[in-house]
């Protein structure tokens, strides 16, 4: 076994090239904010600019073929680009086109659709949101109700979606809708690429207590032409499922847990009653517990990364990693509240801990639902373990 990444001289040369390019092309404002719900001025423009420049260079989607707007690069170089961006805490606008929607189009789209949709998505020209969730269809996504009624060579969409996107405006809405009111669940859904500026689309921001902003989207007699349908008229469920693995913990990367390192450093430094916080025996034990959890999460991510790059098929690894993270974040927040008391809860410039990182972690820890609740992850895990009524293999990773 080898738990380290090794790079050849040639790959290190490529790293230097990426680094030099980022020195010139990455706007200094395009760094990850403490709280994505409160972006500092200038961040949005800077993030969009970084995205477009990476896209034009072929580095936004380095693994994809050049003809579709990718970089045609080997996986090692893609990793290096990712590491250099992470090392600078680079922040890119919310977009699910690259991660989830392009792979679905690659598998299910016609040649014409691939030519029309992939280059703008993969070169960073346009932003795409995944538009699945409805007020009464979250974990039970297949119960969605948004209607797509056929009229000649068009569909007419009516209904509401919720918890969608971010405060960056999307160009395209990758929408699941019911294409036949009489067919049984799972075989009554179509997947559409809907231009966000279509007449009848209303996007209205929600107010959330943590994380980046989300939107309600209302469809009022929105006309979508037939050639915007990805896959067959009733294939929407399969199309969506082909990429759900990527959302459910599947987008594995070698990300280190920065938060725990910051927390430990803070507790070594901060004093209470004349001694470092970290010398309190109860605090020590709580910090070690948090640190241990972070190591497990890191190793799960490394394992997933290794399996993916070695083309070893997954079983429960993706949802297990998502479940672990979703369960550990509230525990961490609870322990941090023990350790820091009111200092954990404030963004007051004078009193806050770690420039608000701690307060943000408290709020983010209640957000265990994006990409599927912990309970939904367990349902998928049970299928992969092979004990549930439904037996299910992991979907192919594109």
């Amino acid at each position, binding site marked *: 076994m080898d*738990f380290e990444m090794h790079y050849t001289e040639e790959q290190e040369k490529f790293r230097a090239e990426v680094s030099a390019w980022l020195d010139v092309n990455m706007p200094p404002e395009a760094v990850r904010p403490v709280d994505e719900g409160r972006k500092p001025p200038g961040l949005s423009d800077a993030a969009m600019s970084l995205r477009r420049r990476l896209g034009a260079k072929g580095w936004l989607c380095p693994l994809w073929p050049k003809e579709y707007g990718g970089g045609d690069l080997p996986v090692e170089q893609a990793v290096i680009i990712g590491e250099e961006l992470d090392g600078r805490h680079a922040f890119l606008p919310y977009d699910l086109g690259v991660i989830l929607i392009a792979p679905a189009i690659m598998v299910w789209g016609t040649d014409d659709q691939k030519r029309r949709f992939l280059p703008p998505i993969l070169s960073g020209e346009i932003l795409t949101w995944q538009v699945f969730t409805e007020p009464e269809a979250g974990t039970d996504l297949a119960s969605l109700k948004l209607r797509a009624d056929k009229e000649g060579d068009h569909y007419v969409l009516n209904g509401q979606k919720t918890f969608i996107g971010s405060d960056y405006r999307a160009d395209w809405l990758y929408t699941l809708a019911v294409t036949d009111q009489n067919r049984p669940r799972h075989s009554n859904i179509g997947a559409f690429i809907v231009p966000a500026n279509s007449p009848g689309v209303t996007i209205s921001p929600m107010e959330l207590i943590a994380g980046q902003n989300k939107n309600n989207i209302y469809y009022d007699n929105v006309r979508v032409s037939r050639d915007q349908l990805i896959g067959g008229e009733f294939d929407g469920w399969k199309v969506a499922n082909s990429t759900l693995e990527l959302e459910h913990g599947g987008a594995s990367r070698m990300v280190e847990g920065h938060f725990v390192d910051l927390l430990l450093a803070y507790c070594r430094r901060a004093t209470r009653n004349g001694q470092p916080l970290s010398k309190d025996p109860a605090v020590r*034990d709580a*910090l070690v517990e948090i*640190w241990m959890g972070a190591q497990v999460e890191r190793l799960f991510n490394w394992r997933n990364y290794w399996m993916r790059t070695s083309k070893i098929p997954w079983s429960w690894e993706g949802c297990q990693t998502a479940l672990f993270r979703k369960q550990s974040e509230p525990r961490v927040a609870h322990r941090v509240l023990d350790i820091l008391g009111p200092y954990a809860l404030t963004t007051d410039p004078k009193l806050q801990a770690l420039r608000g990182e701690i307060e943000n972690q408290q709020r983010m820890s209640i957000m265990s639902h994006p990409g599927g609740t912990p309970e939904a992850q367990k349902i998928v895990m049970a299928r992969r*373990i092979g004990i549930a009524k439904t037996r299910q293999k992991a979907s192919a990773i594109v």
Partner: protein
Amino acid sequence: MDLSLTESQQMLKDTIRRLMERECTATRLKEIEASDTGFPADIWESLAKIGLVGLSIPEEFGGGGGSYEDLGVLYYELGRACAPTPHFSSGVLCAQILVEAGSPAQKAELLPRIASGDLILALALTEQDFGWEADQVALTATKQGDSYVLQGTKVFVPDAQVAHKLIVAARTPGGVSLFLVDAGSPGLSVRNVTGFIGGRLNEITLDSVKVPASAVVGVVGGAAPVLDLVLARSAPVLAAYMVGGSEMAFEITRDYAGTRVAFGAPIGTFQRVQDHIIEIVNAMDAARWTTNEALWKIDNNKPDWRIGASLAKAMASEAFTTATHHSHEVLAGLGSVKDHPIHHYTTMSRTLYWYLGEPKLHRQKLADLLEL
């Protein structure tokens, strides 16, 4: 990054898996449990015959010269079978103490015989003031002419009943020293400790046991760093056994949940039952990857290998106990029947939970190592 086993490690794994499936069956485990000493001579001989008893002993002393990752492969498989052998006492702890601190004569005389399985050693360290530091040793060794006289009691020592020789930690002027003591020495008696225990644990009483000065292993008064090093490096090996045991507890539980029907359906289709099995899988995988990384860190001399070792032992102790606990939740009454193999794993998990340090101790070590 490559987290796969090497080709030769995979072959080693397959070989041990086949051997254990053939010889360490559920029926055999029950016989071993009911026997006087709990020593499976047949399995021991089979392991020795293919060179596995001395797997980590250097080749120049008749061993396999294997790495810690190789030992991990062996221990995953021994753990899957819940094999109760004195391998850890003899082939890992005592062998490594001799490799680190033994005189050339001691190495040449003892290591080849340990590797061949003919000689079994056990480490007599823990006493009434229980712990894994040399500081906690009170048993005395008093110099008398060219000899030492050992006086005191060791408790919760595995494998003392079957060992031919013991390495006894004793207090000498200037610190703690290690002594090779023949199991049959006059004044030495071994008693079995009964209870909810996997394998065998013993109490050893040394009443004026006389050993020659040549029985000292290493420097007089210098045992503390040797014990510290060998115990820390061996902890992830033991962790590998516990991961293997957790893996078997998982497979037993999964297979039962898939076939046992209640309320008209296999119980594995009930989400309450699934939750137990998911807990097992998560605990097992957390222990598996922390253990793998710890073994790799030792083999590659990473400066933070002790962090990895304590993390692995803490995680594996929790995992094996958690896995068997949830297994019993699913197996219910069946799991309490002595004919069912799970109880071997359960008792072993509880025994190994504290062996070489319970999670509380390793969390304290981690706090120190992380400079908290």
